[in-house]
Structure formats: C-alpha cells, structure tokens
C-alpha cells in the first residue's frame, strides 16, 4: 500500500466509526479491535492491548487511542489523520445539533430518542469491556489483576492510577 492510500483508509474507517460511536469512544473499542487486528492486520492482539494500556495511562479523553492506532499504522501523520477523522465530523454534528436541541426540550420524540439509546449504549460498553479484557488478559494472574482493579474502582474512591502502578510493577516482576 502506498502511504496516501493508508491515510485514506484510516480517514474513511475512523470517520465512519465515529458516527456509530453513540455513547463514547469505549463503545467503539470492539470495532477498532475488529478493524485493526482482524480485518486490516495492522497489529496483533498483544499490540492492541498494549495500545489500549498506553491510551489509558495518557491523560485526556479515551478516544486518543485512535491517534495511537493511526500512529502505529502510518506515523505522526497517520495519528493526526485518524484522530481528526474520528472527532471532526461528529464535532460538526454536535455544533449543529446543540443549536436545535434546546428548542425541543420536553418534546416526546426527544425523550424517546434519549431513553431508547441509553440501553443500547450500555450493552455496547459492556461488550467493549469484555473484548478488551479478552485481548489484555492471557493468564490467570492477569485476570486476577483485572478483577482486583475492578473491585477497587467499583467500591472505593482510591485513585485508579495506584492500581495501574502496582499492576505495572507486578507485570515487570514477570508474574503475568
């Protein structure tokens, strides 16, 4: 593939993906995985899990994983093209809709759209958690780290970065 071709593929795929990412970037993670690992063979399962981890330890919106996938495929330009495609069209839409939406506060169709999309979004997010867990955890110990972090994050207010740091140390020691 020539470089221009790759950028075009990145732009089209992420622009299309963004339209369907109702409920946020995490909803689109399984589709990114399908695209990058299974369809395009840009990266292995392991590399995808590493990419997810790097996006998580970077501050800012989770969607920046897209810049990292683009970077992996086609360097800095690939990263910029991918993130612009993922955020550009939907930002224009958000800009247009925010002006219209406020006028229809209390409308029945607005309420139906809102409450109809919530369970779809939640189901997709659950699928997302399932897919990235399978990509990331390849040992019983890794599953234990995931379960422990999930428990801590669910039941306590401890900053999750502590769990990340400890898990990184456990991995570094070669236990995973």
């Amino acid at each position, binding site marked *: 593939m020539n470089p221009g071709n790759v950028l075009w593929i990145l732009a089209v795929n992420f622009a299309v993906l*963004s339209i*369907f990412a109702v*409920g946020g970037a995490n909803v689109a993670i*399984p*589709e990114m995985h399908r695209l990058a690992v299974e369809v395009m063979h840009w990266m292995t399962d392991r590399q995808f*899990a590493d990419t*997810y*981890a*790097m996006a*998580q*330890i970077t*501050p*800012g*919106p989770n969607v*920046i994983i897209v810049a990292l996938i683009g970077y992996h495929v086609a360097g800095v330009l690939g*990263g910029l093209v991918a*993130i612009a495609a*993922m955020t550009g069209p*939907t*930002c224009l*839409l*958000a*800009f247009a*809709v*925010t*002006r219209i939406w406020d006028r229809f506060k209390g409308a*029945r169709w607005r*309420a*139906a*759209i*809102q*409450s109809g*999309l919530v*369970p779809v*979004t*939640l189901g*997709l*997010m*659950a699928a997302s*958690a*399932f*897919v990235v*867990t399978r990509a*990331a*955890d390849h040992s019983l110990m*890794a599953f234990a*780290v*995931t379960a422990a*972090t*999930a*428990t801590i*994050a669910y039941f306590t207010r401890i900053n999750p*970065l502590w*769990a990340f740091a400890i*898990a*990184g*140390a*456990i991995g570094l*020691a070669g236990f*995973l």
Partner: protein
Amino acid sequence: MTPSETTPAHRPSLTELFSAFVGVSLSGFGGALPWARRMIVDRKGWMTPDEFNEAFSLSQFLPGPNVVNFSVVFGSRFGGAAGAFVALIGLMAPPVAIVMLLGLFYFYYGDVPAFGHALTGVAAAAVGLLVATVAKMLLPLFRSGAIVGPAVAAVAFVAIGLLQFPLPWVIAVLAPVSIAIAWVWP
C-alpha cells in the same frame, strides 16, 4: 430556569476556555468527564449542576466521544464557533502529542521484555477500571425494574461481544427498535 437565573456572573473569554480545557485534559486520567465537571461547575461556576447535566446528556447520545462533544457544546454556548474550536483544540492537542510520544517509545522499546511485561500489567488493570465503570453505569438500568432496557442491553452485548457482528449493523437495527419501544412505552 430562565436565562437570567443561569447566566454566570463571568463569561469565559476564548483564552480562558482554551486554558480551562487544556487543564481538564491534562488532569483527566482514565477519562476527562469528572475533571470537566469539577472545573466548570465547582471551580469556575460557568454552569449550574443542572445545566451541566443537560449539556452533558446531549453530548452523550450524540455520536462520537462524549467529552469531545461536550467541549464543542460548551464552547459554542459561550463563544460560538470560535469557542467550540478553542475548547476542542485545548482538550485534544496535549493528549494527542503525549500519546504519540508514548507510541514512539513503544516502537523502540515495545520489544524490550521489561517494558512489555510492565505494560501487560497496566493493561490488565486498565481493563479492570473499564469493567468497574461499566458496572456502575449499568446499575440504574437494572435497578429500575424494567425488562426492556436490560434486554436491549443484553442483545447489544451478545451481538458485539460474543458474535462479533460489525458495529454499524448492530446499531442500525437495535437503535430504531429501542427508540420505537421507548416511544410506545415512555
């Protein structure tokens, strides 16, 4: 709420908008939403809690990343197109630069066993955080006692998580059905 009640004492300038969203972005580990709320509602008083929830719920079911949409919705409300643009760039530019530096590091050292091992650990913890977030978000759905919502969520989960159907198809079928049900039984 009337506009006079909710208009903040101080409207952010474009520079303030930009630096505020840079701040949100750089402190937002594991998602920027909590930090956005802290900055806009608690610290700056640019929106009341209700206004924030409304603006965020709009951002949430528009397609695309929530917090990114939110920066556009918020920025446009206070500064029109220019406001939306500076808020968006403030939110996105720092993490995109940081993540690509990490990617560069990975390119050179990804094969070094120690780095790979540490990242395996962080990845396991990172998905744990996602599992916990999803669990928290699912709670109200099941608490409500309704059957339709959890059923729709379960279908979406099976279609994407287990059967690995393409996302556009799943949404194209499931979203209209779910909205229609919500229309008939509000």
